[in-house]
């Protein structure tokens, strides 16, 4: 099979694409964007119903729409895109052919069929069980079947990725170690295998229960294993989007990692500790011991948080070092002021880094703390947090990457460059606002996944404070603006694919051009204040740390005023 393929070197980026891999990346990325479009349309229903003054959909429709929104966004959009990223990080970055392209197409077909089957199950009604689908609440059998097919497809995709690494090694297309970005993708893929297997362990018996083959799936065990799948999915995203942050730092600034040792070490911590974070979904559950909660929700002593904090410094730090080498050395922040803010590839990633750290990271650690969790569990603070991590972190990063890929991979000139320039700001900043007011409403206790905060028809209705209503109104406004931002992204990307000017694709060749050995890095840099090579980044990191410490202890202070509980 290997002889039938060709390679082309993209004249704009210098990247080398193998024909089969390129088609697979295209197919997966396009499927991802279609799912994003579906999820985005559904978001309109969610946002306009939770906006108390609008309260658009009927309860049954709302729960149906919310289920489909969650699944399309969190699973299909992100995982299709991630499979594309895995193929890119293996075949393209290592300049080799993709392993077993037919099996990779089979994986794609399984994922596609699974996504369709599952979506259809939800739209038929009777499967409005939310993405978490906790037993004993039951969905239609095809709901679980669709998820299982998709997961099997994704798992096969992961193994194609590993196979491709083997091919690159065997064909000696690179020397020494794999690039850092590929290394990050390997981490994401290892976590993905763990995640998907956990999903299979629990969804297969649940499927069997839905067709009447198994009598009973224990609700507590379901929750535990489901979350080994559910939260770990987000851990794949973290590893993947952090790899893309390094990639963008490299392509926009020509930045080198400050230290390969530190960055790779931090990725390794993810493999060892990141999945433990799943446990924080069980903090308010009965029957789980204190010791288990402390060990697991601290990601065993917070080593995974440590890893994220390291990446939070090393990525902007690498950008700063690269900028300073170009002569932007004045003061702490000239490097940042003179960054290409009009380039959506950079601005998207930078907005993502800041939002992911400040909004997603801090709130995540807060709610993952055993006792503090009691003041936010199942409130709308939770979606506030995960929109900051998944949407600001992962989705915005993937959007930024697409802007890079349109000319490089899709060989099209971007239509509406001005719209594209503003899109990360509109989408990213409105999501910041959306997440913040959602967390505010959650702090006041407003429930997540709740059709009517006025409790219409309840004999013992509770009245939320006026501030909660106001915040939910602001959630509605922020959400609508974010949806517009998302629509612009869809317009620009799909429009560029359809109507963008075709760009020259570069020479096709039967032969691989291996990656030439990299010239050794320059010796240690000598500029910067405090003897630091990246003083600006360090200052930002200190601001982050102070915000983190303050917010953490404010929550403890509040908790200490509540009812005694033991």
């Amino acid at each position, binding site marked *: 099979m290997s002889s039938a393929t060709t390679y082309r070197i993209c004249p704009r980026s210098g990247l080398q694409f193998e024909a089969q891999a390129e088609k697979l990346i295209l197919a997966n990325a396009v499927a991802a964007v279609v799912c994003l479009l579906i999820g985005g349309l559904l978001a309109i229903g969610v946002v306009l119903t939770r906006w108390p003054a609008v309260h658009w959909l009927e309860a049954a429709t709302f729960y149906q729409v919310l289920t489909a929104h969650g699944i399309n966004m969190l699973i299909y959009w992100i995982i299709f895109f991630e499979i594309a990223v895995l193929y890119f990080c293996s075949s393209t970055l290592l300049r080799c052919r993709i392993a077993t392209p037919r099996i990779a197409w089979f994986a794609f077909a399984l994922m596609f069929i699974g996504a369709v089957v599952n979506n259809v199950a939800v739209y038929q009604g009777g499967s409005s069980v939310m993405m978490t689908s906790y037993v004993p609440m039951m969905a239609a059998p095809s709901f679980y079947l669709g998820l299982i097919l998709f997961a099997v497809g994704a798992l096969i995709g992961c193994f194609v990725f590993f196979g491709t690494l083997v091919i690159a090694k065997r064909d000696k297309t690179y020397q020494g170690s794999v690039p850092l970005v590929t290394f990050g993708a390997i981490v994401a893929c290892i976590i993905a295998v763990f995640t998907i297997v956990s999903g299979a362990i629990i969804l297969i018996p649940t499927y069997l229960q839905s067709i009447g083959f198994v009598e009973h799936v224990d609700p507590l065990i379901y929750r535990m294993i489901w979350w080994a799948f559910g939260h770990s999915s987000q851990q794949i995203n973290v590893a993947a989007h952090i790899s893309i942050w390094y990639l963008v730092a490299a392509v926009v600034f020509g930045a080198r990692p400050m*230290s390969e040792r530190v960055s790779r070490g931090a990725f390794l911590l993810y493999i060892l500790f990141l999945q433990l974070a799943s446990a924080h979904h069980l903090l308010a559950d009965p029957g789980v*011991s204190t010791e288990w909660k402390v060990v697991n929700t601290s990601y065993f*002593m917070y080593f995974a948080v440590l890893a994220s904090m390291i990446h939070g410094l090393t990525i902007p730090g690498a950008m700063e070092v690269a900028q300073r080498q170009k002569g932007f050395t004045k003061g702490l922040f000239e490097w940042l002021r003179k960054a290409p803010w009009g380039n959506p590839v950079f601005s998207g990633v930078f907005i993502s880094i800041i939002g992911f750290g400040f909004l997603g990271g801090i709130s995540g650690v807060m709610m993952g703390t055993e006792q503090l969790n009691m003041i936010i569990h199942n409130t709308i603070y939770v979606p506030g947090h995960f929109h900051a991590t998944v949407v600001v972190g992962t989705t915005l990063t993937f959007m930024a990457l697409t802007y890079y890929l349109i000319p490089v991979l899709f060989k099209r000139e971007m239509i509406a460059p001005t719209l594209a320039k503003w899109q990360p700001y509109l989408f990213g900043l409105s999501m910041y606002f959306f997440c913040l007011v959602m967390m505010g409403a959650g702090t006041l206790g407003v429930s997540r996944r709740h059709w009517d905060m006025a409790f219409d028809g309840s004999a*013992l209705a509770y009245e939320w404070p006026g501030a909660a209503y106001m915040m939910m109104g602001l959630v509605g406004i922020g959400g609508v603006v974010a949806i517009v931002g998302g629509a612009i992204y869809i317009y620009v990307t799909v429009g560029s694919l359809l109507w963008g000017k075709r760009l020259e694709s570069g020479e096709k060749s039967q032969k691989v051009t291996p990656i030439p050995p990299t010239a050794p890095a320059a010796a240690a840099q000598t500029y910067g204040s405090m003897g630091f090579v990246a003083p600006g980044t360090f200052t930002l990191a200190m601001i982050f740390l102070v915000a983190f410490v303050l917010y953490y202890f404010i929550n403890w202070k509040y908790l200490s005023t509540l009812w005694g509980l033991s």
Partner: protein
Amino acid sequence: MSAILPPADRLWWKHPIDRVEGTWIALAFVWCMVMFFMMVLWHVYGDQNLSTETYKTTPDAFIANAQAMVDQYTVRTETDLEIPVVAPPAGSDIYLIARLWNFWPILELEKDKTYRLHLTSMDYNHGFSLQPTNLNIQIVPGYEHVLTVTPNQSGEFSIVCNEYCGIGHHMMVGRLYVR
């Protein structure tokens, strides 16, 4: 562009760590340790720690206990549904049932007194969200969760279900009084 190229130095794991990275890793590590020990310390010195006392149960067994409490300590009923308001003595075992789509019964407790609150669900997962205090606990069917609670404020409280449990989820609100 070395993050997308193999590291120039084949022995990259021997690279020296820059001071800015070293300092930050040390600071972040110390903070992570503080956060880790905070959870442990709160178990020793703090008053808000979720109980882990749990038993397997069945709806029938739990209803029997709850009914016995209601029969003994009901002081009045509320609303057209005649939901019993139960005022059990301080220190006793109290029972709260969550089911589609209500909490039963209404409990009336005394401020600063301690009770053993038994929680379970008759059907699906539900949420125990005490408002306006904002304490939130998961209720899982088949499992009886026993919490030792000490209300520190008097007044009227609501228990909102905050785990999605079907179409009537938004009507699932209970009440709790503290004298």
